[in-house]
């Protein structure tokens, strides 16, 4: 974990509201694990004040990539950065997916909803080089919201897509698309990231079928490195359940650890 105020943007791509930045940051690149994230300073002024968290989307030599959706002030400012600009980042942060114990597992399924696809590309690369090829599920609102489809296909992954409006692939939620495919598939492990209702639905299916599953949670983060206690989620611990800092103990947790929001009420 370190602060790199001089992460050079060496490449930028975008599709409508989605952006992919390649950042030269050798030490962070060398330490990064799938599911970990970085905190990005979006302005040197005092508004927006806080850094923004982004998953590490891939690592290539001394470069890392982030993939993000323009969805507010911070991501909007970020989207204006250009190749040759520097970014001030902190990372790698948090604990990632437990991928390394799964090099022998077949039928691993990765499920990404919208921008939640971001960390799953890095994970798919790691699993692939470890010798197993996961199956990808990728959902979005419309066909514009699944811009990374080709990227996965080019790497030879089987990918199932869904769009809410049916403009591409399965019409409906990616959870339903996944459930639909369960007649053909027998997943041994699920890794997922996306909107909370999506992850909760998958978690329920996974628990019912006895499939181990891990999820990358989101939360408003003040610091990203355990100092503010702002990012907590309810997590089952030995003591029962407590508010756990997801920037430190997560953002990845398993079905059995997460107490999903509605449940607590």
């Amino acid at each position, binding site marked *: 974990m370190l*602060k790199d105020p001089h992460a050079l943007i060496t490449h930028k791509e975008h599709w409508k509201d989605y952006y992919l930045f390649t950042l030269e940051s050798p030490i962070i690149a060398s330490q990064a694990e799938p599911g970990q994230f970085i905190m990005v300073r979006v302005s040197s002024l005092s*508004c927006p004040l806080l850094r923004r968290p982004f998953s590490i989307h891939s690592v290539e030599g001394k470069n890392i990539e982030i993939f993000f959706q323009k969805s507010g002030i911070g991501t909007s400012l970020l989207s204006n950065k250009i190749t040759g600009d520097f970014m001030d980042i902190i990372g790698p942060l948090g604990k990632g997916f437990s991928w390394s114990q799964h090099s022998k597992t077949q039928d691993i399924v990765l499920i990404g909803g919208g921008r939640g696809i971001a960390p799953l590309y890095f994970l798919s690369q790691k699993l692939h080089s470890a010798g197993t090829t996961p199956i990808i599920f990728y959902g979005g609102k419309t066909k514009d919201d699944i811009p990374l489809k080709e990227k996965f296909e080019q790497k030879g992954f089987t990918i199932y897509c869904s769009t809410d409006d049916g403009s591409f692939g399965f019409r409906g939620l990616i959870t339903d698309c996944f459930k639909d495919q369960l007649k053909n598939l027998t997943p041994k492990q699920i890794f997922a990231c996306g909107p909370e209702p999506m992850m909760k639905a998958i978690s329920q299916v996974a628990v019912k079928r006895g499939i181990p599953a891990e999820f990358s949670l989101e939360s408003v983060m003040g610091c990203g490195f355990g100092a503010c*206690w702002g990012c907590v989620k309810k997590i089952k611990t030995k003591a029962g359940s407590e508010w756990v800092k997801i920037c430190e103990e997560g953002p990845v947790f398993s079905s059995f650890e997460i107490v999903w929001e509605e449940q607590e009420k």
Partner: protein
Amino acid sequence: MIDLSVDFGFIKLKNPVLAASGTFGYGIEFSPFIDLNKLGGFVVKGLYYSPRPGNPPQRLVETPSGLINAIGLQGIGVKKFAEDILPQLRKYQTAIIVNVCGETEEEYAKVVDFLNKEDGISLYEINISCPNVKEGGCCPAQNPESTYSVVHLVKEVSARPVITKLSPNVTDIVEIALSAQEAGSDAVSLVNTFLAMAIDVEERRPKLANILGGLSGPAIKPLALRMVYQVVKHLNIPVIGIGGIMTGQDALEFLIAGAKAVQVGTANFVDPEATVKIIQDIQRHCQFNNITKIEDIIGTLNE
């Protein structure tokens, strides 16, 4: 060589820059980023006697140049602090300050009494803005009598010097500060956060699960500085300035107004190196202006 040390009488700090409670974890969270020995000191996260679960999320809201938090003082309690954390802190050559909390006056005293036995703590800072669960009201900091009462009690049991940390949510900050001084406080620090709120317009509900929270960050600096300026004029114990300090310039504003030291809060989240950079900035300012001791700047405001 510029002498950045400041002498409080009861303690000498190597420089006037401290990290503020609740924004610096237990200190160790920052050791990957900075050498903690470079700081004047740091204040650990608020400690109650018992562990506390804290508030449900959402706990943070960003506002223009500010941050509202409603962490609810989640914490590990004094015992775990003494067992797990303190041993790690003892190796640092800097002032370690414990931020003392209590739901009742007795709890403040219990925390201090417990920690008196432990080595490696330089000072206590009593956080009189803790909600008073027993009496259902807000907190001792909003009333001169209850301020006096808590400070007096803590001073009676304390084996170490005591800083009283004031809340800005009052009509007359000087009145409260004087109360703390009268009750024997060795110093005061100000300000804690401003009571604040944000609403999610689409959902028509408060953004924070706790409804209300405390505002910190650059937005509050002009208010905090005004209060420090007022308090300095009326007290004869050292004053520590807190509120929205992001840069050396910000810190110098407080020092010029008469604060003997400053605490850096929210800035630590934005830049974990903030404290050290602020110390460097202050040093550079002194160099540039041929000032050999930082104490020659403190309280030099030309009105």
